């Protein structure tokens, strides 16, 4: 009886080990940032592809993607990545080189393509506040720093990227000089000194929805948050005042994970979702800033979407990816140390 029991246990265990082999073909999987935007993308972009596409969301942390590539067990095919992650990932062989014979490179705006990435959307951050709680607010970053004229708590993103540029502009540095100055020790000291001055009134956010929540429940008076979410809230009826002159923007790219079994289908998917027709459908429901030239410069689209970032990009500051690849680790550590003092 006991020997029989032992044999049964061994048999079950063995069967379990054999049965757990990796599965065969899976559907083409695309990954983006989630939220309402992805719901709209599912309908207008992925759903119109023709072949079945599974979409899922992630938090823009590329650690899992690298782990996937190293383990050679790819479960994601196409991913929307931020510019620094794209460039670093391309150099490290985490992403495939885009097949430009499948994806038409000419349709993208200037700076909208990369060896491993095809422009997906532009995004940005800017100052906003609730007009009902505060009729007047800062028009630029210097006024954002002026707590006498505009009293109340402020919120900035918890991280060196974007926050240090904002600190320098709050100290009076013109946008064109920001990155040159921030590369020098004197400039960095100036940025941290400016943050020190604002610190008693400063709260930091980590999640994209937090600026909206903080402004809504009165925790902060003036916030710097993602323009897409702010614009969407405004369209939904919120009484926010969005200050376009304070825009900092960058592009996100579609990339294909290296070693994916669906790489070829992934390239065709990228070609489809960056075409004018599906993107025009998307712009009808979300003030996204597409990187496809035809859609970004379409006069109808720009007129219909006054809150579309392309209408205001000229006055904004484009976030310098190479700068952050170079100085990122040191500045992020310095920021974290500053934050903890």
């Amino acid at each position, binding site marked *: 009886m*006991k020997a029989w029991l032992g044999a049964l246990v061994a048999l079950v*265990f063995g069967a379990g080990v054999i049965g757990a082999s990796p599965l065969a073909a899976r559907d083409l999987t695309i990954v983006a940032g989630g939220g309402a935007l992805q719901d709209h993308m599912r309908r207008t972009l992925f759903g119109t592809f023709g072949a079945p596409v599974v979409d899922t969301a992630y938090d823009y942390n590329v*650690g899992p993607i690298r782990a996937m590539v190293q383990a050679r067990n790819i479960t994601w095919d196409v991913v929307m990545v931020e510019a620094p992650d794209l460039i670093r990932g391309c*150099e490290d*062989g985490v992403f495939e080189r885009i097949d430009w014979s499948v994806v038409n490179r000419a349709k993208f705006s200037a700076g909208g393509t990369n060896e491993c990435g095809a422009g997906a959307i532009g995004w940005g951050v800017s100052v906003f506040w609730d007009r009902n709680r505060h009729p007047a607010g800062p028009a630029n970053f210097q006024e954002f720093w002026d707590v006498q004229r505009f009293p109340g708590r402020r919120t900035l993103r918890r991280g060196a990227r974007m926050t240090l540029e904002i600190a320098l502009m709050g100290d009076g540095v013109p946008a064109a000089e920001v990155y040159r100055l921030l590369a020098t020790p004197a400039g960095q000291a100036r940025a941290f000194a400016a943050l020190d001055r604002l610190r008693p009134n400063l709260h930091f956010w980590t999640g994209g929805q937090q600026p909206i929540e903080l402004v809504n429940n009165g*925790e902060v008076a003036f916030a710097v948050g993602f323009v897409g979410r702010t614009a969407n809230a405004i369209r939904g009826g919120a009484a926010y005042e969005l200050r376009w002159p304070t825009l900092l923007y960058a592009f996100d790219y579609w990339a294909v994970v290296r070693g994916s079994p669906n790489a070829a289908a992934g390239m065709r998917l990228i070609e489809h979702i960056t075409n004018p027709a599906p993107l025009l459908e998307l712009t009808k429901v979300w003030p996204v800033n597409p990187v496809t030239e035809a859609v970004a410069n379409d006069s109808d689209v720009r007129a219909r979407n006054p809150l579309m970032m392309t209408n205001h990009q000229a006055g904004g500051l484009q976030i310098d990816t190479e700068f952050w690849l*170079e100085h990122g680790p040191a500045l992020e550590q*310095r920021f974290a140390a500053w*934050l903890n003092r």
Partner: protein
Amino acid sequence: MPRGLAAALLAPLLLLLGLGFLAPLLALLATAVRDPELAATLPGTRAELVAWDGQGLPGEGAFAALARESTAALADRRLGPLTARLNFSEPGLRAALLRVARAGGRLSAPFADSVPALDQRWADPATWQALAAARGPLTSLYLLRALDLTPGAAGIEAVPADLALFRELFARTLWVSLLVTLACILLAYPLAALIAGLRPPWSGIVTAMVLVPFWSSVLVRSTAWFALLAREGPVNEALLAAGLIAEPLQMLGTRAAVLVATIHVLLPVAVLPLLAVMLRLDPRLPRAAASLGAGPWLRFWRIWLPLTLPGVAAGGALVFLLAIGFYITPALLGGERDQLIAWFIAQFLNRDVNWGMAAALSVWLLALAGAVLALAGLLAGDAWRARR
């Protein structure tokens, strides 16, 4: 039970422990000390640097190898890990290396002139020393940097003050974890004693009241506290309505919020082992003590407490180990000065993709937890022996 069968039944457990616990732990320790990037990406340059004496600049061979190998690595898309590794120890090296790699075959001999002409940093001995420091195969860089130290030219030096971060973080993590452990034990002890003294069905009902929150996720409970403690949340509204305060209190983003929520989340973990020990306590022992004339305090101090000490130790150890790795609750409810070390481990792992630093921080965290538990075990053991 025949020994063969016993071994067969144990085998899956040992396999699970080995594969799921020991192997990852060893891999973690290995990741914290390995330095493979230079050897893997620029082997010829590394060989030249090993032969170099570290004074002045290396010879033409090193420059030539650098130009040749970095170009090849960039074309093969293998250069990334090395640029990240060098930029971590010496900010600015990434651009210097990329410039040489992108120059391609356009550089010509003598490389000792053409490479520095491309980027001045290659004429600086410090750059080459930083490169030589990465020759591996093992390095102390990550373990030292995780303690705000750096392997400088004159031995181990402290990192500049405006970059020093981790020692304070470890201290803070230890302090918060100990506070939470103490508070959980103090709160859980009477609660477990109460439940142990109840008769069914009340014992079951109260136990369920303790367990049901335990079955919801940590994130859900932390978010609930976020909603409770918000400026316009129920707690502030109740205090305002009762006239106890004039202005809403700023409770979110404070250490107190983190402590309260963490204690609330970990309390069931402390209650259950205490309850298990107290239920097994022979009720005749306190009664015997009473019959011999012991008052309530003496019964508690000499009978109850020593007998339930194993439960206290188990519950306390569990709570401490969980608290030391907490990062959801401090991230949601704490201010900038309330972040614990686990948040930074997650940052290095996911966002910065610096697995060496994540592993090094984890190693020190493991050592810290082990040291505290060993110390507690020693003290408890001494106290136990003294009592007998």
